[in-house]
């Protein structure tokens, strides 16, 4: 059983599921062997990515065969950060769902809620969230523009 930081890739429920830390030990060469026409890649399990991991990811995402369309789902906030900071991070892929971090100013509860890109695009905004603990309206605990940029870019 790999620890939470060990990078793993598994096929489950018709999705390519990535988890762990993308660093110098993560083998990302599978990206170059993807076969299409469509691959659904679930990033929920990615805990973080280091500088070497960013470079390795960029190298491999460029090797995704032409004709393979990657649909990224359940993109966590730490990967949203990368998409906003690093040029070409998702290659030619598109993001169909992502997690938005919310925090409650009243009781300091924190949670990440899954949001569908198409749904947000219709609303032209991120959805409101109610705190499960105290019922207050929660704040998006991040720069909202980073998430709205995804709606424009994908």
């Amino acid at each position, binding site marked *: 059983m790999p620890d939470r*930081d060990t990078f793993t890739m598994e096929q489950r429920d018709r999705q390519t599921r990535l988890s762990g830390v993308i*660093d*110098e*030990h993560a083998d990302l060469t599978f990206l170059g062997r993807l076969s299409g026409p469509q691959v659904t890649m679930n990033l929920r399990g990615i*805990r*973080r990515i*280091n*500088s*070497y991991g*960013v*470079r390795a990811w*960029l*190298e491999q995402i460029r090797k995704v065969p032409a004709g393979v369309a990657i649909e990224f789902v359940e993109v966590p*906030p*730490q990967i949203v*950060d990368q998409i906003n*900071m*690093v*040029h*070409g991070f998702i290659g030619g892929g598109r993001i169909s769902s992502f997690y938005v*971090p919310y*925090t409650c100013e009243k009781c300091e509860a*924190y949670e990440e809620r899954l949001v569908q890109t198409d749904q947000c695009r219709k609303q032209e905004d991120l959805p409101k969230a109610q705190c499960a603990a105290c019922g207050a309206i929660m*704040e*998006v*605990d*991040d*720069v909202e523009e980073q998430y709205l940029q995804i709606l424009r870019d994908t």
Partner: protein
Amino acid sequence: MNGRRVLFYDPDPRVVRIAERALTATGSDVTLATSEQSLRAQIEQNGYDLLMVNFDPPLADKLEWREFLDKAGERFPKTKLVLHVTSRTEDYLPLLAERRFLRNLIAKNDAPLEAEELIRTSEKILRSDIFGLEKYLLWGVEPYRVHVVDSREKPRYVQQVSDYAARLGCNPRTIELVETIVDEVVTNAIFNAPRDPDGKPKYAHLNRREPVTLATTEQAELLFACDGGYIGVAQVDPFGALTQDTVVGYLNRCLVKGPRQVEEKLGGAGIGLFRVFQSLSKFVINIEPNHRTEVIALIDLRLTMKKFKQFPKSFHIFVQEDGRA
């Protein structure tokens, strides 16, 4: 009084009141400049050990001031300069590359200025005593210390600090920031800092997958601590090879989103420092050239992630040369 003279300038009277109290409390003789004209006139008198100047527009936009401050180092060699800014980090970082006088910047956030940071920064410079994570934390806090010896042990180093942050009750995103900082500074300590006897990088060319065990004289130290307000991580290496130009160059290149962001040469990706910078509230680099480098990253735990990202970051490079900071 300790005989040291400090000249302070800020157009905001609230900031001036804080600075006057804080700097006078250190025992220095504090002069307050009330306008750009009086600031210029006071600097020309050349009697100050330290200038602490607000570097926001309109002053920051004036070419004459940039050039004046650029040359101030040569004209007044005993006078050190610290600037405080409200500009976004992305705005002042490119200036760092152009203007060598921009070495110490204190960020102003919601509060007009942190008296603690004014005192800490001025005293580090005036006392020529620049090293130590402890200076950034409340008295009584004792940092945990880990020897950085082997690249294969990096996950264990990261885990120790990560577990510590979890015990403090940090949320998952703050823990991820802490892990990112430790990952990058440890990689830096193992691969980038060590020098051979000729002063050339010893392991920087290696693929980061290659195992490296540091000799006793090459080993770095990782420190971490929290005082309730800040969690701090420091890495100290016994080489002092990092330079201001290296730091500023890497940070600026990464700021521009584009194909040249990430290096494709063998070795590191060249974005480690930037990733550290993006993960902290205050960045402090202390350098004793050819002897020691200390990289300190502080995360303000009182901020939401939104404010953490929106607020400017303090940035300091202190260089200790010939016993002087």
